[in-house]
């Protein structure tokens, strides 16, 4: 299957780059793998093999820049450029190196209102455990030792932009719709959607809100035990936890929501949820049960889930 493979990296603006470095290294267990003269940091998780999955830029704002997805082949960039433009979305082809450590990339603003990059090549580094007779996890390392960046949930201005973004990701980038929250007359509006290219329940999700932005991005952990240990590590470091360990109805994920030093919401998402396949029927959550879908145990709104999130930098 050619085309988009997975979420490649997230690009954020942060208020205090030193605090952010300490946080992502000591608590999340990432490594800084590149540092630019302007202070921009690039970080990688131990179980990832490409150079980086997170870009942190020193800024006067705590905002969201872009999400980048990796495609399988360089020719996918040409194919998708044609497809995206035929859909009526303009694109910009960026030379190799414009995205650090990446080959040429395609930049566009999706109908969801967010800027995306697609790239096929990024400097290869390898997992910390190597690829010959590897240990199951690195003995070295700090904090919760997150495996990889799993998905991002983006906030769209209203259900119209959720629906426009979802349709674009389905029809043009060939994502599959795993789950949806339907509201309004006879459930005619998608207030939230979860879409996948991998075999996990989501590689991207869209939720309706008042402003365009990023609700959270998630780090993968193995399961409940790791979630509970991660919550301990967070409390030991005075991390502001938004939602303590909890089950999602939607995706079936095991979760903690918490904030980084600039207030960007992060998630530790554990368990694979279920095997996502292109022919799996879409799961629908109705308006009256949507909080059961979001927080399965309590079934009610919790924390700052709907009120607090990062705004896009360019809006």
């Amino acid at each position, binding site marked *: 299957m050619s085309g988009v493979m997975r979420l490649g990296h997230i690009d954020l603006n942060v*208020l205090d780059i030193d605090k952010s470095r300490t946080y992502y290294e000591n608590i999340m267990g990432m490594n800084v793998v590149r540092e630019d003269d302007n202070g921009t940091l690039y970080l990688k998780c131990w179980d990832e093999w490409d150079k980086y999955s997170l870009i942190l830029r020193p800024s006067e704002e*705590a905002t969201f820049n872009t999400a980048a997805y990796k495609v399988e082949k360089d020719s996918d960039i040409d194919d998708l450029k044609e497809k995206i433009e035929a859909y009526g979305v303009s694109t910009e082809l960026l030379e190799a190196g414009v995205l650090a450590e990446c080959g040429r990339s395609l930049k566009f603003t999706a109908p969801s209102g967010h800027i995306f990059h697609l790239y096929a090549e990024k400097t290869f580094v390898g997992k910390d455990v190597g690829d010959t007779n590897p240990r199951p996890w690195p003995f070295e390392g700090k904090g919760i030792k997150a495996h990889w960046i799993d998905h991002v949930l983006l906030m769209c201005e209203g259900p119209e932009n959720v629906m426009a973004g979802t349709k674009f990701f389905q029809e043009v980038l060939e994502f599959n719709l795993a789950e949806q929250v339907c509201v309004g007359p006879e459930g005619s509006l998608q207030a939230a959607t979860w879409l996948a290219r991998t075999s996990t329940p989501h590689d991207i999700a869209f939720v*309706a809100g008042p402003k365009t932005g990023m609700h959270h991005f998630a780090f993968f952990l193995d399961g409940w035990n790791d979630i509970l240990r991660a919550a301990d590590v967070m409390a030991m470091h005075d991390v502001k936890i938004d939602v303590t360990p909890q089950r999602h109805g939607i995706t079936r994920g095991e979760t903690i929501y918490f904030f980084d030093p600039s207030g960007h*919401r992060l998630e530790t998402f554990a368990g694979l949820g279920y095997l996502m396949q292109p022919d799996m029927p879409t799961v629908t959550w109705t308006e009256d049960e*949507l909080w059961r879908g979001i927080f399965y145990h309590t079934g009610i709104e919790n924390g*700052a*889930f*709907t009120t*607090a999130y990062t705004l896009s930098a360019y809006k």
Partner: protein
Amino acid sequence: MKYNILVKDKARNHTCNENKNLMDGLSIYENLVPKGCHNGACGVCKIHISNGDYSKLKMNRKHISEEDENNNIVLACKVLPKTDMKIEFLPKTISNIDKNVYILGN
């Protein structure tokens, strides 16, 4: 050292430790401060400080302009008390358009 913080919009007094920002310090009391990210990104905890000395960390310019900051309009999560203080949370104005699209928060 603990200082007394009067939250004018709630007409309630509670203490906040000098080494905690106002959000972290006051959020342990029920229904006193708005729910937010406690670190700057969300902008939910905008306050006007009418009395008291404080130290502050960098504000998110997406939510607090230089002019705001000069007029003691700041994010509570970026303010640490140095004396007793009087503060007021400034509610987020939600336009009718925003209300229409704010599905999950209704």
